[in-house]
């Protein structure tokens, strides 16, 4: 394989399937998503994959690249290829629909199960809530709200791999940001929702979610915060 060509193996199939090898021309500033798109347009029009924005805003192009979860649109080939070789697979810990496209519904169901909905305590008749950005609660919420639901942390998490019911870092991070939102009124229900056997206490603090989050969020810290809050609530008899 010359320097001008990449050896790319891409997963084809669903749960049952195999890697298929393609030779793709190497280009300057080429992303992994560029490689997948080139394969689909030039070699294999049946290849299924997802993308939308191509600039790291939508979170739909996440895949396993050489065994690590990444946004393919923001992963330059020259930074992630190993000796000119790429192995591209669907996201870990999610059922595969076809090729590189996963079924994300279970991932979003977990957001629901973690009570990831905002429950307002005011309505349009009230004044706009005055939120001081310097308060510790708002700072903690701000640190976690840039999640775009890409599923990278869910794919990186070993606890999800071992216990498919585990709510996972993204849903728990969402729950934590809502717990830190003074405008939300469902704190007790949410603490109950994250206190089950597959909730925040199942986290081993491996920190893979933090390591791989492309937005540099720290769901492990969010989960630790939920552990503290649930312990305090249980000791006060509020759970």
């Amino acid at each position, binding site marked *: 394989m010359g320097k001008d060509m990449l050896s790319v193996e891409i997963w084809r199939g669903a749960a049952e399937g195999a890697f298929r090898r393609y030779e793709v021309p190497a280009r300057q500033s080429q992303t992994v998503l560029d490689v997948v798109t080139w394969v689909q347009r030039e070699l294999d029009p049946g290849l299924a994959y997802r993308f939308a924005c191509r600039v790291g805003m939508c979170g739909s192009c996440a895949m396993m690249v050489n065994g690590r979860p990444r946004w393919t649109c923001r992963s330059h080939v020259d930074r992630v290829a190993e000796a000119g070789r790429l192995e591209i697979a669907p996201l870990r810990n999610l059922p595969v629909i076809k090729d590189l496209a996963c079924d994300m519904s279970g991932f979003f169901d977990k957001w629901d199960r973690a009570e990831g909905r905002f429950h307002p305590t005011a309505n349009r008749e009230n004044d706009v809530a005055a939120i001081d950005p310097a308060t510790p609660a708002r700072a903690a919420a701000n640190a976690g709200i840039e999640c775009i639901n890409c599923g990278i942390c869910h794919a990186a998490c070993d606890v999800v791999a*071992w216990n498919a019911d585990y709510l996972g870092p993204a849903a728990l991070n969402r729950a934590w940001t809502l717990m830190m939102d003074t405008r939300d009124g469902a704190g007790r229900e949410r603490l109950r929702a994250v206190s089950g*056997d597959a909730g925040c206490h199942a986290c081993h603090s491996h920190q893979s979610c933090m390591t791989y989050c492309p937005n540099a969020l720290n769901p492990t810290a969010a989960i630790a915060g939920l552990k503290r809050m649930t312990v305090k609530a249980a000791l006060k008899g509020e759970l």
Partner: protein
Amino acid sequence: MAVWLFILQRGSALVMAPLVLIHIGVMVVAVRNGLSSEEILGRTQGSVFWAAFYGLFVLAAAVHGGIGLRAALAESPLPRPAAGALGLVFALLALWLGGRAVAALVA
């Protein structure tokens, strides 16, 4: 229940940490001073303090180990109820064996 198991496991770890340090410290002093096993038993037998000290340690270890084992087994291919049952069996076994050891030391 998960939150109470979490509290019990972290709490039992907090209890065990100082007990382990005191145990090691006492062992070092006893060995350095050349105490024989008879002399050690002479100090521990009938002692309410050492019975409470090692009794508490056995209780904390049984709770901590049982919950930890349950958590590890729950992530194995075993069915979830089996993990809880095996964790409980381990805790009871640790309690029984540890209780016998404490009795041998202080009774």
